């Protein structure tokens, strides 16, 4: 069975450790299973819940980007559908 690694409980994506085919059940290491709705290459991310356009993507418990389109639960999350949000450095200074 295809597996995917969940790194933090806040995350809405998990990383597939083998290629997944549409219709596959992916076992999430870190909890549960998910049905894959499109082909996902090895080491790429699967959405663990429906993600709407503008929603933040979490991995490592941190924001890795923002969805540029709606992404279905079990869909492929990649550089094609998420983008990096500019930093607010001034507010990070202490």
């Amino acid at each position, binding site marked *: 069975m295809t597996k995917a690694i969940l790194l933090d409980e806040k995350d809405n994506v998990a990383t597939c450790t083998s290629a997944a085919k549409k219709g596959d059940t992916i076992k999430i290491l870190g909890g549960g299973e998910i049905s894959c709705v499109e082909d996902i290459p090895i080491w790429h991310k699967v959405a663990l819940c429906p993600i709407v356009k503008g929603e933040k993507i979490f991995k*490592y418990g941190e924001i*890795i*980007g923002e969805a540029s389109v709606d992404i279905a639960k079990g869909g492929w999350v990649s550089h094609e559908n998420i983008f990096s949000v500019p930093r607010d450095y001034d507010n990070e200074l202490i």
Partner: protein
Amino acid sequence: MNFWGYKRADGRAGIRNHVLILPTCACGSETARIVASQIRGAVNIIFNTGCSDVAANTAMSQKILTGFACNPNVFGVVIIGLGCETVPHAKLREKIKSMTNKPVVSFGIQEEGGTLKTIEKAVRAARNLAASASLQQKELCDISELLLGIECGGSDATSGIASNPAVGELSDKLIDLGASTLMSESIEWIGGEHVLAKRAATPEIHNQIIKICADYEKHLLAAGQDCRAGQPTPGNKFGGLSTIDEKSLGCIRKGGTRPIVEVLKQAERPTKRGAIVMDTAGYDISSVTSMVAAGCNAIIFTTGRGTPTGNAIVPVLKVTANAQTFSWLEDNIDVDLSGIIEGTLTITESGDLLLKEIYDVCNGKLTKAEAYGFSDIAVDHVCRFV
């Protein structure tokens, strides 16, 4: 914990005892290569700059050349100059002599009457240095003399999930033993800089880390480049890394968890011991070049997609947690950490495994890139040639 190394007069310890054939500029590089090829125990670098540079680029190339010469893995230096470069061989030689008391000699191709006459003299000088180097006995050195450079290149999603945390564990273990580690590639802190800055030992260091990222973005914007357009690289994206933030959050894990005690400018020598970071490019060859100039005795290098890279002066130990990459590029990668992904190897066990590997490298074990004699170098530039 001790290793068998070469004690230097400045108090540092080398894990190799190279005679370095060092060109002052691109025009000396081929002669330096031929000289090194004649002498067992000599290494050379190919230098692509040193001439027709703006002052800031010259300052960087001088930091690299003097840093390489002063690196504790180097016994002595033979400098090969041309004669019309920005910093001629005698000036570079005197600068190096003011920084270290290791033997340094130099020759200029225009002065000597061409490459063959230069080669004759330089080979003889290098032979004498190699003979002296061969007499130096290894001594027991405390692990606190180790400055390990931590690098990643050709990253994929396995890097941040497995090999980088394993190297982070190694870094923590080394620091607890009294050694120092150096993590660079500041562009690959962007998006994770707020997490990295939490490790700062002081508020000043916290703000230095944030400011380096802000300044890096501004520098690239001034050249018309959005850092998010170049990072992640096409290979990173193919390997499952979608944004610079995702790449950075994985990258910074290789630095471990111990407090960051110093932030260095590029190619600067540390003044403190412990976990140290340096402002360098994300370009792995350039970052390693700067860490070697800063005095690292060894480099550990994580990769997802695989790379053959090596450095002339410092052994580069390459590790991957991508099983397919290891089996496909086994001739280039030293350590297989794919058990972390498969669930057969814990991060703690990986840290122990890497500590043993680094200990062996310190004691003289050749890494694969070292055995092949690889000597990649890239000097960071801020401006076009003039």
